[in-house]
C-alpha cells in the first residue's frame, strides 16, 4: 500500500501539443481518487503516465517513497484495468489472471492459491477454464479486476472500466469496485467522464479540463462549492443553469429586474460588475408571486422522471431547467415564480469563469 504523489506533471507531445499542463496532487494511502473531465482533457494521459505507459515530459510521479519517472510499468507495482478489459484472448481466465505472477516466477502453488482467492472474492470460480470470448461483458470486467488483484499491487489504476457495460450493470459494478477497493485497502486512481461514477466512487475528486486541474476536493465539496463555471456545469445532472447578472451590492446580485442574495460572494466587487450566476436545477424552489427575491420562470414543457420532474422553460429569455418533486403541480405552460436558497447561489467571473467566493 502506498500513497501517490504527482508534482507539476506535464505531458508535451512531439510537435508541442501540451496534453497535461502541470498537475500536482497527492492521494493518501488507501485513498480512492477519481479523475473526471470531458474527453481530451488529459485525464487518461495522466493515468497512463502514472502507469508508465507514457513518458513524463516534466515533473515527478512518486509511488510510496519512490520517484517512478524512470521506472518501467512492471516495476512500479501497479495494476491496471482497461476500458476494453484487454484480456488475453488466447488464454483461459485462469491463465489470464496468473500471467503476471508467472512472469515474476512465483511458485505454482502460490499462484494457484492467489488466483483461487481472487476468483472467490469476485465470484468467478466457475469461469476459470473459459476463454474471454465465452464471457459476458460483466464477467470480463470481473476477470480484468481479478487479474489486477492477484498481483497485490500498491496501486490500482482504472481507465474508464465501466463505459463498455450497459447502464444496469454499470451501477452494480460501480458498487462492487468501491467495496473491493475498501476491503483490500489499496490506493486507487480511476479515470471516467461519467460524473455519477466520479461522485459516488471518489474520496478525492479531481476535475480536469484542457490539461489542467480545475478543482480537487471531496466530492460533496466540489458539488457544493464548484471552483469554476466549468466544474459547476460538469458536475451535477441536469447541469447547473448559468445566467448573466451584475453585482448589486455586497452579497447581492441582480438578474435583470430581480435581486438575488448570494451568501458565498466576495464583498470587494464594485457594483455593476458583470458576473455569471449559477443555479442548480435541484436547488430551485417554487415561490409565490411577488415574493422577495423571486424570479419569473416561463415553463414551456415538463419531463416526468418518475421520482422527480424537470420543468424546462425560459428565465429572462434564457433556457432554464428546474427540478421539482412530483407532487408539485405547475401549469403545463405559463409563468411561475421561483426562489433559491442564498447559500446555493454560485457566482462566477465572466472572463475567467472562476468562483467569486469568500476566501
Amino acid at each position, binding site marked *: 500500500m502506498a500513497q501517490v504523489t504527482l508534482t507539476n506533471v506535464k505531458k508535451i507531445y512531439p510537435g508541442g501539443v501540451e496534453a497535461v499542463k502541470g498537475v500536482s496532487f497527492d492521494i493518501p494511502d488507501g485513498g480512492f481518487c477519481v479523475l473526471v473531465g470531458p474527453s481530451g482533457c488529459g485525464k487518461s494521459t495522466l493515468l497512463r503516465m502514472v502507469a*508508465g*505507459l507514457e513518458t513524463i515530459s516534466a515533473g515527478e510521479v512518486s509511488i510510496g517513497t519512490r520517484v517512478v519517472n524512470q521506472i518501467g*510499468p512492471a516495476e512500479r507495482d501497479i495494476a491496471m484495468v*482497461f476500458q476494453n478489459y*484487454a484480456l488475453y484472448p*488466447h488464454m483461459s481466465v485462469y491463465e489470464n489472471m496468473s500471467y503476471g505472477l508467472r*512472469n515474476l516466477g512465483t511458485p505454482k502453488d502460490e499462484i494457484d492459491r492467489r488466483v483461487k482467492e481472487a476468483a472467490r472474492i469476485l465470484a468467478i470460480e466457475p469461469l476459470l477454464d473459459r476463454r474471454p470470448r465465452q464471457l459476458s461483458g460483466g464477467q470480463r470486467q470481473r476477470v480484468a479486476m481479478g*487479474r489486477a488483484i492477484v498481483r497485490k499491487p500498491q496501486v490500482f489504476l482504472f481507465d474508464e472500466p465501466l463505459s463498455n457495460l450497459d447502464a444496469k450493470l454499470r451501477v452494480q459494478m460501480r458498487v462492487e469496485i468501491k467495496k473491493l477497493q475498501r476491503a483490500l485497502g489499496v490506493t486507487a486512481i480511476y479515470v471516467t467522464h461519467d460524473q455519477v461514477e466520479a461522485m459516488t466512487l471518489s474520496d478525492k475528486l479531481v476535475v480536469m479540463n484542457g490539461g489542467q486541474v480545475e478543482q480537487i476536493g471531496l466530492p460533496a465539496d466540489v458539488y457544493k462549492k464548484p471552483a469554476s463555471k466549468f466544474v459547476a456545469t460538469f458536475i451535477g445532472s441536469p447541469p447547473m443553469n448559468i445566467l448573466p447578472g451584475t453585482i448589486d451590492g455586497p452579497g447581492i446580485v441582480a438578474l435583470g429586474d430581480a435581486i438575488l442574495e448570494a451568501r458565498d460572494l466576495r464583498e470587494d466587487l464594485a457594483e455593476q460588475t458583470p458576473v455569471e450566476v449559477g443555479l442548480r436545477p435541484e436547488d430551485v424552489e417554487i415561490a409565490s408571486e411577488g415574493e422577495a427575491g423571486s424570479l419569473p420562470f416561463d415553463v414551456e414543457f415538463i419531463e416526468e422522471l418518475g421520482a422527480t420532474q424537470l420543468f424546462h422553460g425560459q428565465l429572462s429569455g434564457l433556457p432554464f431547467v428546474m427540478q421539482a418533486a412530483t407532487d408539485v403541480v405547475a401549469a403545463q405552460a405559463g409563468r411561475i415564480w421561483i426562489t433559491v436558497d442564498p447559500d446555493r447561489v454560485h457566482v462566477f467571473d465572466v472572463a475567467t469563469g472562476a468562483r467569486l467566493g469568500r476566501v
Partner: protein
Amino acid sequence: MQKNAYFTGLTIPLLLLLPQLAITVVFFYWPASQAVWQSFLLQDAFGTSTEFVWFENYQMLFSDPGYLKAFINTAIFSTFVCVLSLSIALLFAVMADRAIRGAEIFKTLLIWPYAVAPAVAGVLWLFMFDPSLGMLARGLSDMGIAWNPRLNGNDAMLLVILAATWKQISYNFLFFLAGLQSIPKSVIEAAVIDGAKPWRRFWTIVFPLLSPTTFFLLVVNIVYVFFDTFGIIDTITGGGPSGATETLVYKVFSDGKGGSNLGGSAAQSVVLLVMVIGMTAVQFKFIERRVSY
C-alpha cells in the same frame, strides 16, 4: 449464422451459381480429369498412337531415381523457402510495426518485390549471382568463396531458394503487418504491466495472437513453393545443373514438354495434386486446432 434457405425452388439458386460452377468445371475439374485420364495413357513420341496402360506410368514413375531426387529437392526447397520467407517477413513486420518515423516508406518499399513477375525476379537473381557477370558473385569470389551455380548443384539450389524467398517475403510481410496491427494496443500494454519482457511478450502474447495469420500464410506459401516458383526455377537454372534444382512441378514440365512423356508427366501432376490436397487437409485438421481465432 443464418441456416434457413431463402429460396424455395432450386432453379434460381442453381442459375446464380452457374457462372462460378462453369468456371470451376472448365478451368479446374476438366483439366484435372484430363490429367488423370492422360496418366493412364501411353503415347509414342510423335503422338500418332495412344495406348491405355493402366498404372504403368505410375510404376515407371516410382521406379525412376530422378523422381525420388525431385521429391528430395522439393522437400529441401519448400522447407527452406517457407521457413525463411515466413520468419524474415515476420521480423520485418515486427520492425515496421514498431517504427514511428518512415514507417510508410519502409512498408511501401517492402511491398514492391511482390509486383515483380517470377520470371523477372529469376532473371534479376541470375544476373546478380552470375559467376562471370554478377556483382555479388564477383564479390563472393573476391572473398575467396567458390561460387558457380551453373556447375555446383548446391549453389544452384541456394540461389533458387534465395530468389523464391525474396519474392515471397513481401506478401508474407503484408499479412503479418496487418495481423500485428489488429492486435489491440491495450492487450500489449496489459502484458507490459504484467511484467512480460519484450521477448517473452512476443512469444506468449503476440505470436499466439498472430496464429490465424501464420496458419493462412503457411497454406498459401506451401502452394506457392510447390507451384508458383516454376518461373523462378525455369529462368535461373532450368532445373539444372543435372537436375539439382528440379522440383516436382518442374519435372512435370520438363518430362511432358521436353521429354514428350505426356503420360508420365500427367501421372506426376496427379501425384502432386494428391500430395498438396493431402498436406492442406493435414494442416487444416491438425494445425488449425491450435490456432486461436
